[in-house]
C-alpha cells in the first residue's frame, strides 16, 4: 500500500458512511451516531497524516483509474489542500460529536447523518480534486446537501430560507459552469494544471476577463461576499445549530474562499486588478457585515452577519497578494473556522437548554451553564481579537500586512471593524451570560456531556492556535499553504513534476 493511496479515501470514506447509514440507520437506532463519528474521526486522522506526507513529498498526484493527465481525473494533494483538509475535518469531527446529543431534538436522525457525511464528502472532494469540472460536481454535492440541511426542521422560516438559499446558490453554480464552459472551449482541457500551462502559452485575452467575472460572481455567491450575501443571514440561523456551525465554519470557506484561491492564483493567474477587486469586496464585506450585525438581537442571526464580516477579513488578507497578507488570510480562515463554529455550537447549547434565541430573553446564563458560558467567553474574545486568543494574532497580522503594503485605508477599516466586533460581542456576553439571572431562566440546566466535550475541545484549539505561528508547526501547515498560492501559475509545472516523482 503506497502512501499516495490515502488521497481517494477523503472522498470514499464519507460516501461509504453515508450510503451505509441510509441502509442501516432506519433499523438500528445507534448506527447513525456511531458511523458518523467513526467516519469523521478517521477523516481527521487521515488529514493529519496528509499534512505529514504533503510536508515530506511536496506535491502528490493521484490519477483516478490510472488515466494520465489530462485524459483522466487527477487528485492533487499539496500544502494548501492538506491545510484545508485539516481545517474542515477538525471542525467536522467536533461537530459530529456535538450532534450526538443535540440532534435528539429532531426526528429522523439517519437522514441528518447521511446528509452531513455527503456534505463533508463534497467539501473534501472540492479540496482534493485537480480537475475543474470535478470541482464543480463536488461543489454541487455539498450545496445540494446543505439546502436540505437548512430545511431540516421543516418549519415555515426554515423552508423559506432554504428556498432562497437554494435559488441563489444555484444561480452561482450556473455562473461557475458557464465559466468552465468558456475555459474548456478556449483551452480544450479540464485539468487545472494542464489548463494553466495552456493559458500561459496562449495568453489570457478577453475571454479570461469574462471568465474571471463569472467566477467572482459564482464563487462570491457561495462565499457570501457582500453584494451577493443576501441568503446567508437567513440560511445560516435557520439550520440546526451543528449545521449552522458547519455552514459558517467551513462550507463557505471550502466552496468559496478555497475555490477562488485555487482558480485565480493557480489556474488563471492573478492580475493586480483581480487582487484589488478581491480586496475591495473583502473590505466591503468586513465593514457592512459588522455594521448589520450590531443591530441584531437574535443570537444566531448576529453570528451569521459576523460570518460575512470575517470572510471579508480573509479576502482582504489574501487579496493583498503579499506573502504576509496571504499567510495572515489563511491563518484567519483557520481561526474563523474554529471560533465561529464554537460560537454557533454555544448558541445551539443555549437554545437546547432555554428554547430561545433572543438575547433579550436570556440573562445570567453563565451561572447555570458554566461550560457554555466559559467557552462562549473564549470564542467571543477570539472573534473580537483580544490577546492572547487566536483571532488577535491573525487580525494583527492582516493589519500589519496592510500597513506593509502601503494600504493604510484598508488597515484603518480593519481596525474599525474589529472594534465594532468587540462592541457587538460585549453586548452578547452581557445580555446572555453575565446579566442578572432572569426568573424564567432559573430552572435552566447545563447541556449533556457530549456537547460539553466538543465545545471544550474547540475552545482549547482557540487558545492554542496561536502556537501555529511558532517554528515547526508553522512550517508544516501555514507556510506550505501560502507557498502554493505564491507559486501562482507555476502550479502546472509543479504538478507535472509531482507525476514524475510518483
Amino acid at each position, binding site marked *: 500500500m503506497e502512501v499516495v493511496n490515502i488521497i481517494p479515501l477523503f472522498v470514499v470514506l464519507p460516501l461509504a458512511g453515508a450510503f451505509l447509514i441510509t441502509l442501516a440507520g432506519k433499523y438500528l437506532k445507534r448506527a447513525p451516531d456511531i458511523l458518523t463519528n467513526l467516519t469523521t474521526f478517521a477523516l481527521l486522522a487521515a488529514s493529519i497524516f496528509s499534512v505529514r506526507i504533503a510536508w515530506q513529498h511536496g506535491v502528490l498526484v493521484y490519477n483516478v483509474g490510472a488515466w494520465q493527465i489530462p485524459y483522466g481525473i487527477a487528485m492533487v494533494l499539496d500544502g494548501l489542500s492538506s491545510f484545508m483538509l485539516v481545517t474542515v475535518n477538525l471542525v467536522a469531527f467536533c461537530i459530529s460529536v456535538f450532534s450526538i446529543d443535540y440532534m435528539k431534538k429532531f*426526528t429522523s436522525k439517519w437522514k441528518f447523518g447521511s446528509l452531513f457525511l455527503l456534505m463533508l464528502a463534497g467539501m473534501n472532494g472540492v479540496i482534493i480534486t485537480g480537475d475543474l469540472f470535478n470541482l464543480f460536481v463536488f461543489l454541487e454535492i455539498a450545496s445540494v446537501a446543505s439546502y436540505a440541511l437548512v430545511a431540516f426542521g421543516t418549519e415555515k422560516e426554515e423552508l423559506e430560507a432554504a428556498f432562497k438559499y437554494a435559488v441563489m446558490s444555484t444561480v452561482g453554480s450556473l455562473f461557475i459552469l458557464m465559466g468552465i464552459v468558456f475555459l474548456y472551449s478556449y483551452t480544450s482541457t479540464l485539468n487545472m494544471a494542464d489548463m494553466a500551462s495552456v493559458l500561459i502559452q496562449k495568453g489570457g485575452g478577453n475571454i479570461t476577463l*469574462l471568465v474571471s467575472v463569472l467566477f467572482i460572481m459564482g464563487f462570491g455567491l457561495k462565499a457570501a461576499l457582500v453584494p451577493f450575501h443576501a441568503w446567508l443571514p437567513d440560511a445560516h440561523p435557520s439550520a440546526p445549530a451543528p449545521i449552522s456551525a458547519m455552514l459558517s465554519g467551513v462550507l463557505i470557506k471550502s466552496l468559496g474562499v478555497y475555490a477562488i484561491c485555487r482558480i485565480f492564483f493557480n489556474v488563471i493567474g492573478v492580475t493586480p486588478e483581480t487582487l484589488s477587486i478581491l480586496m475591495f469586496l473583502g473590505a466591503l464585506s468586513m465593514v457592512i457585515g459588522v455594521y448589520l450585525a450590531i443591530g441584531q438581537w437574535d443570537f444566531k442571526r448576529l453570528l451569521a452577519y459576523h460570518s460575512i464580516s470575517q470572510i471579508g477579513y480573509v479576502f482582504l488578507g489574501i487579496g493583498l497578494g503579499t506573502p504576509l497578507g496571504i499567510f495572515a488570510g489563511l491563518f484567519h480562515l483557520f481561526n474563523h473556522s474554529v471560533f465561529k463554529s464554537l460560537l454557533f455550537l454555544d448558541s445551539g447549547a443555549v437554545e437546547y437548554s432555554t428554547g430561545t434565541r433572543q438575547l433579550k430573553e436570556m440573562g445570567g446564563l453563565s451561572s447555570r451553564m458554566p461550560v457554555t458560558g466559559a467557552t462562549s467567553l473564549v470564542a467571543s474574545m477570539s472573534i473580537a481579537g483580544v490577546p492572547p486568543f487566536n483571532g488577535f494574532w491573525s487580525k494583527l497580522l492582516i493589519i500589519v500586512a496592510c500597513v506593509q503594503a502601503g494600504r493604510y485605508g484598508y488597515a484603518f477599516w480593519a481596525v474599525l471593524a474589529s472594534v465594532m466586533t468587540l462592541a457587538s460581542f460585549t453586548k452578547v456576553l452581557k445580555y446572555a451570560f453575565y446579566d442578572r439571572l432572569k426568573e424564567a431562566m432559573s430552572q435552566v440546566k447545563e447541556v449533556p456531556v457530549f456537547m460539553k466535550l466538543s465545545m471544550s475541545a474547540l475552545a482549547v484549539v482557540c487558545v492554542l492556535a496561536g502556537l501555529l505561528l511558532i517554528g515547526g508547526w508553522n512550517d508544516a501547515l501555514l507556510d506550505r499553504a501560502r507557498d502554493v498560492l505564491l507559486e501562482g501559475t507555476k502550479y502546472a509545472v509543479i504538478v507535472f513534476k509531482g507525476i514524475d516523482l510518483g
Partner: protein
Amino acid sequence: MVELYVLLVFMIVGAVVAIEVEDLLSSVIAVGAVGLGLSITFLTLKAPDVAITQLVVEILILIILIQATLKRDLPFSTSGRWYLNTIIAVVFIFTFLGIAAYCFRDLPEFGYPMLRVGREYLKEGLERSGAVNLVASVILDYRAFDTLGEATILFTAVIGVLTVVRRIGRKKVDEEVEED
C-alpha cells in the same frame, strides 16, 4: 445549419412565453416545449446520448412540476409597470450579450473546436476502454469519478426530498415520534 437557427429561435420564443405567461400550468408546459426543442437540438448537434437523457429527464421534470402546480392557486405574479420591466429586461440582456460578443472573438469559431484532449478519446477510446459508444467510455471509464459524484448528487437529492417532506421536524428530547 438552418435547422439549428430555427430550433434556437423556437426555444427562445418558448422561454419568453414560459416566463411571461401568468398561468403557472401554461408556464410549466412551455418549459416542456423548450426542453423538447433542446432535445432535438442535441440530436442535430450529433449528441444522441444527451438527447435521450434530456428527453426522459424533461418528462420527469414536467411531471413533478405539474404535480406541484396542479390544483393550486393561480397567482398573478408580475406586479409593477410592464414597460419598466421590459426596458430593464432588454437593457440587461443586451449589455450581457454585448460583453459576451466582445469576448467571444477569442473562442474558436463555431463548428471548429480545438480538440486538444478530445482527439485522444476519439482515437484511443475504443481500444483502451473497449466501449463502442465513446460517450459511455468517457463517463464510465476515463471520467468515472465524475459519474460517482453525479450519482451521489442524485442520492443527496433523494435524501433531501425525503428530509424536506417530513411532517414533524422537531420533538422533545426523550419523546418517541413515529417516523415514515
